[in-house]
């Protein structure tokens, strides 16, 4: 039973089409129904068919590379019986009906907002977009049946037309749209069976590719408005410090610098163009107070060690059976500890946003993962009511969780309000690298009890680190949300070790205890692609490998014994063993390691094939990934998402990391925070098992297994066990 997928039920459809204006169908959740009736909001055109045949689709999700526009459009188009190229426009729309139910569920109701993140877009909207397409199709068929005075079952829908099966005559959807709008909305329109799918399950070409290969795609950085000014920012370098005074004389001496706007811990420079604004920001001399300017990496490690070794129990995340008792009576035990370090998102498009604020209203153009947070900060800055705030979502030049935080949007709003003109603020790369909300550093200590055959039957785990939910907590008013403070759950921290949403894929370890000890550091952290699974999968899958080696059991066989009740997991293990050539003769100097994870309704195993030279330089040659993600809507997009997520995981696993010295980030650009390039990209073989189950989330799925599988392969190569990410050369020589 997939708990998350069963949540996504949006049953209410509303037809707002007026006679003669075509068919306009929208999903109406409670709040949008009220809004539509009060006349303040027009129901957004989730699907609109105009008399001229044009078809527009409104999207609930931001397109940040994950292909969600193509995927959701395919889902809707399949049921509607149109081809993808019959869609004339697709646009992300901000609307209360587009609140993300799985996000709400995962945060115990705290974040009841429109947000693209957590890999849950399909989980959230697959069902409703199918139903929307089916509803429109049935209304068009009904209109055709009336027109021809024939039974509806003689009206066949295909490729944007209804054909009279008796006469062969057909009418286009545009011709039928106005009559269709007068049809009653069918409550339960028939959905296709999988054998009737034409688009779902096929490699539909991406709708965003043309604009992304000719330079015409508009990202946040590319917004141009009449009379627009350009902004750049300079933050206080030490975390927690605030501006005491600003010497802006050099900045203001630069021709083209228009305004210098100091805020609490950042200064915005507004100029005639971005380059001048960035020059101005560089020329500022900031005097700051506060912050801990002696804080460093060693302090992070010390705090995490204190949490792991101290008497604090922290939040009880999972208690099944009695792990302590089971461990004390086990045949043998192993105590293992792992750590992960700070990493930056480094989206290729740096934080940026444009805003225009007048008394009549406020417009924001932003690459954002949360339209509601954008609107909230706009209301805060402008003091305008919600209905005067308009959020325009651009393409995102990468999100990966970074663009859930509206810090950069606030700056554009303030600059626009202060100058009375539209302003586009663009961060420099250095500001981005030094003022991110980073992957939180974590320590994980596991004590495993083993039975007489060396298989773990009890596990006690302590997690220590700062919660990645912090920026969200701050957005919700600074109060710790109930999922952490009261229930002891912080899903984003614990997922991958214990997932309260479902235990469908967890290892069968009868006695399990997981405690989370929140450990604060004066460094902002946040949601980094695949959140807590980074530290949890690294720890758990490395530990499984250590246990397998200690017990003389093949690592895949050890997982089999712990997943024997999970047929989908077993299929994945069988397939990865075969596809990776596990245990067969490899090229000289090549070694393999593996890992398994269940994450967001996806069952997945990876095998990494690596070599290492005598100077400790690791080369990852190949990663074989087998994933059962339920129904793969678009196998080409699944493949590219997995491949990309694996490269992302590689970036956090080898060499690069964010270091803290003197209370601030050491690195400042891609020269000292190097990201993987084509040359080091391994061959990534993705094998998709189509179980036909409800679709799971694939945007982040590929990332967390890279660290442990590469580390396990390096153990096979060198006999040296890696217990911290990223892996350094000195770890393997």
């Amino acid at each position, binding site marked *: 039973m997939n708990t998350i997928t069963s949540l996504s039920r949006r049953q209410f459809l509303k037809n707002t089409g007026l006679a003669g204006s075509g068919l306009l169908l929208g999903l109406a959740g409670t709040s949008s129904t009220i809004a539509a009736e009060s006349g303040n909001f027009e129901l957004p055109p989730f699907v609109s068919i105009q008399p001229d045949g044009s078809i527009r689709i409104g999207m609930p999700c931001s397109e940040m590379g994950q292909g969600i526009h193509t995927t959701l459009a395919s889902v809707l188009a399949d049921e509607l019986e149109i081809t993808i190229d019959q869609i004339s426009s697709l646009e992300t729309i901000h609307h209360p009906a587009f609140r993300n139910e799985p996000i709400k569920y995962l945060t115990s109701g705290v974040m009841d907002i429109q947000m693209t993140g957590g890999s849950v877009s399909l989980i959230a909207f697959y069902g409703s977009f199918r139903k929307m397409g089916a509803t429109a199709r049935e209304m068009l068929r009904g209109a055709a049946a009336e027109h021809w005075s024939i039974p509806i079952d003689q009206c066949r829908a295909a490729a944007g037309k209804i054909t009279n099966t008796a006469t062969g005559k057909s009418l286009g959807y545009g011709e039928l749209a106005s009559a269709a709008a007068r049809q009653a909305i069918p409550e339960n329109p028939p959905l296709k069976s999988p054998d009737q799918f034409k688009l779902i399950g096929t490699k539909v070409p991406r709708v965003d590719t043309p604009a*992304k290969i000719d330079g015409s795609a508009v990202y946040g950085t590319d917004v141009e408005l009449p009379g627009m000014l350009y902004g750049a920012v300079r933050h206080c370098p030490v975390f927690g410090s605030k501006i005491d005074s600003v010497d802006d004389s050099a900045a203001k001496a630069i021709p083209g610098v228009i305004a210098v706007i100091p805020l609490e811990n950042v200064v915005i420079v507004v100029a005639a163009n971005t380059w001048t604004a960035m020059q101005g920001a560089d020329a500022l001399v900031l005097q700051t107070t506060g912050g801990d300017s002696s804080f460093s990496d060693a302090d992070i490690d010390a705090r995490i060690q204190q949490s792991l070794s101290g008497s604090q129990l922290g939040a009880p995340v999972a208690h099944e059976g009695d792990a302590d008792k089971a461990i004390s009576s086990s045949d043998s035990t192993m105590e293992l500890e792992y750590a992960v370090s700070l990493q930056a998102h480094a989206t*290729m498009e740096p934080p940026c946003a444009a805003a225009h604020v007048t008394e009549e209203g406020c417009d924001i153009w932003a690459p954002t993962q949360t339209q509601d947070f954008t609107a909230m900060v706009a209301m805060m800055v402008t003091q305008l009511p919600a209905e005067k705030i308009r959020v325009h979502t651009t393409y995102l030049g990468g999100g990966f969780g970074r663009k859930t935080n509206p810090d950069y949007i606030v700056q554009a709003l303030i600059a626009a309000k202060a100058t009375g003109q539209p302003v586009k603020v663009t961060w420099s790369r250095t500001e981005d690298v030094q003022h991110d909300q980073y992957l939180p550093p974590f320590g994980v200590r596991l004590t495993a009890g083993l039975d007489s055959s060396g298989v773990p039957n009890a596990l006690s785990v302590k997690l220590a680190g700062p919660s990645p939910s912090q920026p969200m907590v701050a957005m919700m008013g600074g109060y710790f949300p109930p999922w952490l403070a009261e229930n002891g759950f912080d899903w984003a921290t614990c997922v991958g070790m214990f997932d309260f949403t479902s235990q469908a894929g967890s290892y069968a370890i009868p006695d399990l205890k997981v405690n989370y000890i929140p450990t604060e550091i004066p460094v902002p952290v946040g949601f980094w692609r695949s959140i807590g699974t980074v530290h949890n999968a690294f720890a758990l899958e490395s530990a499984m490998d250590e246990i397998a080696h200690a017990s003389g059991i093949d690592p895949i066989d050890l997982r089999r014994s712990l997943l024997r009740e999970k047929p989908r997991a077993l299929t994945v293990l069988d397939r990865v063993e075969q596809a990776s050539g596990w245990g067969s003769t490899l090229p000289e100097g090549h070694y393999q390691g593996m890992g398994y994870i269940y994450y967001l309704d996806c069952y997945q195993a990876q095998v990494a094939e690596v070599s290492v030279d005598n100077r400790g330089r690791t080369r990852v040659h190949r990663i074989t990934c087998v994933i059962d993600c339920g129904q793969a809507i678009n196998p080409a997009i699944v493949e590219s998402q997995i491949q990309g997520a694996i490269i992302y995981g590689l970036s956090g696993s080898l060499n690069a990391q964010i270091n803290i010295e003197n209370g601030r980030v050491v690195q400042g650009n891609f020269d000292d925070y190097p990201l993987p390039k084509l040359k080091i990209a391994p061959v990534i073989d993705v094998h998709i098992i189509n179980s036909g189950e409800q679709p799971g989330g694939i945007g982040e799925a590929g990332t967390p297994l890279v660290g442990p599988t590469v580390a396990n392969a390096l153990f096979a190569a060198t006999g040296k066990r890696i217990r911290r990410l990223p892996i350094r050369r000195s770890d393997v020589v």
Partner: protein
Amino acid sequence: MTISLDVNGKIHEVTESPETPLLWVLRDGLKLTGTKYGCGIESCGACTVLIDGRQVRSCGLTLADVEGRSITTIEGLSSDRSHPVQRAWAELDVPECGYCQSGMIMAVASLLARNTSPSDRDIDRTITNICRCGTYNRVRAAIHRAAELMT
């Protein structure tokens, strides 16, 4: 003072100061926003354009450096996405977020203009642009495909 700039076959008179990086003249001055800012230190390649047919990172050149040279941006590579690199990119659906892809495509166009059938080693050495989405498997395949389309 104006400087005349040859971009995509058209002469523009621009008024930015001579030390302004070409990237920002293209983006904010000429509104050719297909060329992206990524790092400002010639590290990531998002700002790659062709100058006299060769790939150059436009954040590292000033307006004064490029006066009189022929500059091609993604907008000028073809008028209808028909350049073989663009055709290969479309065929393989290379972009994810797409932000780096203008620069990636320009770098590949430069490579293929001098080497019509590059080896993987040639590609590794020449195409050093960063793609944070990690489209590298497809980029490599699309380079080979584009080379086929050019013959």
